[in-house]
């Protein structure tokens, strides 16, 4: 029926063309095959890598930070679960849109979010945008997860300090690692968003407590949502710290200071263990361990009371009359004075054209060393200082640890100043003036000390010259092995001071409390020895204490030890602008000592038989 309209030759032509089509088809298929061979065989491994990168994300598993306990195992710092919001830039299509969504949804600060999104770091690693989210916010984000590609909520641990402000300066606080810190070698294995100790033992023992982060390789879909975890590298918890402090004593010391500014340090002179170290005003480390806004930071940093300052180890004050303790020892040891030699005090000391006043207008009459300490006679020590000279004073001061940091495990400890002619030449490029020796003799002028140094000093005296480096950490518990590694006390050697000298001085210090300037420290519970001090703030003082504006009032010092017969505690108290040491500081020291004695500590003292010697001077190797 449908016969061809074309002659047979036309169909034959068609046949020839179909042959061309076949050849062409084979050529094209060969070309396709070649291309696929190139993609799958030659470049296959490359594309395999790309597909692996496409689907896997490394999620770091933060380790649980080590816990902190006091000497009796009372919990001071732990971790509680909290929700954090992370963003993986690789999965974010529109950054500005995300900023807007997060600010609308959670009320976050847009500038802060933007800053975190643009910070340096891998696009594949999730970066923390917000921590300590409320359950409500976390749920809100989860319910919008389809609109928020690259966003995820992680449950992680948040540092928590159950005691609130208690021991804040010792514990310190934690915070996200700063860009500056990230560059440092000790933080090499950390990453943006890691939490590190920023203050206190949290900082100085950070390496022990931070642990080792684990890693989870997570398979994600094109929206960055987790499908399954493929490899889990478990995080290693950090080690726990056992501090030397007694949380109860710490609390008492802090409450004693109350609203006043100042510091109280209590330590065990036979080991250097710091039992309490209070500094006021304080701060809540729970707040500081959180993400603070710029405004909150400014408020804290610009607070005139400088609450972040640990006054116990960082506050430098003139020691005032407490300096008479090393002065008295120096006087006896250098034979500048004998126990029985006396000085007549008529209320002033004329040196050159200047009259140096005694605190007691009428003077003390004839005083020997014992009475000079008990009644804190300035004229006696003016005389001692003038006879001995500043450089001998400096030598003794340094032997007692003044002018150098004690080495306690806290960041930014200050050293105070123990002046000498060489010091002045170096620091001020000026000659030492003889009159400056007179001021220095009663702990004024250039001499400055920290309360920690003074507690250590009085402890050394109480312990008959045997001293230990003050310390806060007595043991570290290794979380992986479960071993408790005790940290031995660090002996600093023994001062080569005659035992008789210590006996005389301690007698005098006991009488300071029983009948001298510090009768308000007299206790019915325990025998206490101590020395008052009043550090001048303003040079000229007239009229009664109450009429002077608070900020010009003197700092009140009291250093003490107890029991006198076999000392177990040494205390230094400084109350800023609280006036006379005997009136203001002595009662606080008494409270601390009595509390400690009542707590009847079965102290698990950690001592070492292998004292390490630090420097020659008047230390002798006695082991």
């Amino acid at each position: 029926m449908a016969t061809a309209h074309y002659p047979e030759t036309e169909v034959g032509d068609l046949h020839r063309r179909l042959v061309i089509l076949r050849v062409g088809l084979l050529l094209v298929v060969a070309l396709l095959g070649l291309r696929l061979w190139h993609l799958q065989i030659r470049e296959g491994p490359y594309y395999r890598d790309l597909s692996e990168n496409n689907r896997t994300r490394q999620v770091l598993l933060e380790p649980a930070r080590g816990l902190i306990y006091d000497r009796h195992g009372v919990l001071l710092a732990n971790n509680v679960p909290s929700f954090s919001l992370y963003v993986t830039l690789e999965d974010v299509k529109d950054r500005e849109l995300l900023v807007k969504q997060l600010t609308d949804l959670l009320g976050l600060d847009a500038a802060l979010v933007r800053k975190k999104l643009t910070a340096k770091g891998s696009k594949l690693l999730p970066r923390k945008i917000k921590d300590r989210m409320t359950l409500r916010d976390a749920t809100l984000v989860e319910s919008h997860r389809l609109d928020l590609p690259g966003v995820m909520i992680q449950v992680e641990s948040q540092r928590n300090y159950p005691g609130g402000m208690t021991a804040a300066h010792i514990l310190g606080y934690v915070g996200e690692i700063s860009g500056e810190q990230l560059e440092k070698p000790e933080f090499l294995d950390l990453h943006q968003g890691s939490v590190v100790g920023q203050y206190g033992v949290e900082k100085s023992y950070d390496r022990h407590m931070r642990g080792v982060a684990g890693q989870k390789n997570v398979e994600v879909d094109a929206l960055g949502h987790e499908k399954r975890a493929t490899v889990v590298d478990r995080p290693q918890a950090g080690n726990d710290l056992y501090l030397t402090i007694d949380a109860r004593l710490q609390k008492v010391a802090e409450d004693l200071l109350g609203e006043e500014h100042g510091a109280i340090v209590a330590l065990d002179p036979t080991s250097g263990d710091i039992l309490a170290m209070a500094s006021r005003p304080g701060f809540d480390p729970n707040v500081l361990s959180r993400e603070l806004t710029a405004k909150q930071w400014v408020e804290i940093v610009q607070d005139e009371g400088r609450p972040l300052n640990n006054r116990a180890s960082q506050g430098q004050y003139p020691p005032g009359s407490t300096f008479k303790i090393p002065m008295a020892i120096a006087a006896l040891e250098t034979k500048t004075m004998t126990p029985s030699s006396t000085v007549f005090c008529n209320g002033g000391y004329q040196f050159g054209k200047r009259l140096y006043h005694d605190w007691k207008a009428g003077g003390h009459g004839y005083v020997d060393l014992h009475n000079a300490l008990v009644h804190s006679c300035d004229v006696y020590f003016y005389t001692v200082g003038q006879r001995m000279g500043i450089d001998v004073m400096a030598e003794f001061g340094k032997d007692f640890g003044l002018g150098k940091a004690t080495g306690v495990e806290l960041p930014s400890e200050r050293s105070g100043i123990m002046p000498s002619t060489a010091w002045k030449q170096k620091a001020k490029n000026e000659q030492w003036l003889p009159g400056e020796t007179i001021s220095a003799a009663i702990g004024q002028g250039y001499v400055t000390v920290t309360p920690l140094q003074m507690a250590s000093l009085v402890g050394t005296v109480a312990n008959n010259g045997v001293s230990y480096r003050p310390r806060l950490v007595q043991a570290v518990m290794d979380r992986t092995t479960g071993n408790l590694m005790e940290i031995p006390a660090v002996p600093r050697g023994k001062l080569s001071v005659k035992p008789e000298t210590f006996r005389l001085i301690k007698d005098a210090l006991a009488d300071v409390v029983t009948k001298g300037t510090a009768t308000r420290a007299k206790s019915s519970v325990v025998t206490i020895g101590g020395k008052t001090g009043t550090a001048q703030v303003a040079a000229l003082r007239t009229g009664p204490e109450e009429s002077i504006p608070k900020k010009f009032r003197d700092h009140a010092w009291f250093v003490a030890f107890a029991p006198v017969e076999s000392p177990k505690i040494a205390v230094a108290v400084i109350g800023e602008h609280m006036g006379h040491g005997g009136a203001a500081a002595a009662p606080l020291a008494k409270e601390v000592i009595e509390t400690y004695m009542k707590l009847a500590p079965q102290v698990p003292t950690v001592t070492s038989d292998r004292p390490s010697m630090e420097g020659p001077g008047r230390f002798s190797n006695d082991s």
Partner: protein
Amino acid sequence: MINRLTEHRELDSFDIRYVALILAILGIGVLSIYSVTYGQRGVGTPYYLKQLIWIGVGAAAFLIMWASDYHHLARFAYPAYAVILVMLVVVLFEGRTSKGAQRWIALGPLSFQPSEFAKLILVLVLAHYYSKAPRVGWLQRVIVPGLLVLPGLLLILKQPDLGSGLSFVAVYAAMLLMVGVRSQALGVILLFSIMLFPFAWEGVWGSLHDYQRQRIMAFVDQDYDPGGKGYHALQSRIAIGSGELLGKGLYGGTQSQLKFLPEGHTDFVFAVFAEEWGFMGVLVLLALFVGLIWLSLEIASKAKDQLGALLAAGIVAMLCFCVVVNIGMTAGMFPIVGIPLPLVSYGGSATIMTMAALGLLLNVKRKRLSLFY
């Protein structure tokens, strides 16, 4: 006696190799669609089941075409073309829009893509045109059929559906090649193309949608902005390449399973297959296609008349074009234009149309065996 012989010979035309090849390719398609949508919480019937339904409908179309007579069908070529042109107009106004293109007509819960069927009808129209009378001179051979192609082409490009549009041009070009164009005519086409090129470029480039331009730009610079324009092309290349020699196994294709590769069940189904079955799987699939096309060419060359030969050649050309361009675009050889892989990609209209076309091909063979002069 003669009748029985005829019947027997007609049944012979139902070439078991041919049918086996089609079923094998369809099977690969269903498996890949099943794999890529595995674990997806879909709404309603899963894609692979729907595709099985389309294949069922397609099988019916295949049998009807096989049992019919292409000479009768050819007589309805022009009215059918008129109907499909009307549908293409309707689609522009009433069509369902998906991803910026208006290609579908809703029929109750189903939708139907006239441009797919337009391709097959175009083959029928051109075969009918050339076989009805000896077309001599370039006007009759080139210009008049060109004018037949043009309205359909323009309507499809307007949707816009670049892939189907290109298929239209490919079918036209293949037909021209089959009937033979004298070098003079070829020269005229070439001259006109060159002269019209600047206008055509403006017209074509200007009329493209943004996403089409971006896809073409992404093709020109393959690694440019992988998160944006080149995303599709790059993810597809990663999927294919990462399959390596033996593939990642069923459901193992991370590119498609984790949705890095969009359109995994439709236009990019080849990438899914290549990722899960590797180069070996790809060779098998290519061999199946080559086998199918080879048998089809065999039918074309043995056709007893001009109409049958042209019909068969046109269908083969259409099939070849879709296979080559689809694989080429997923492998990053061509820009991405929306052309499904025949018999493999998910899609009702395309599957039914392709199976009907293959049925028609087999009909050409059947008629060859039953025709007695």
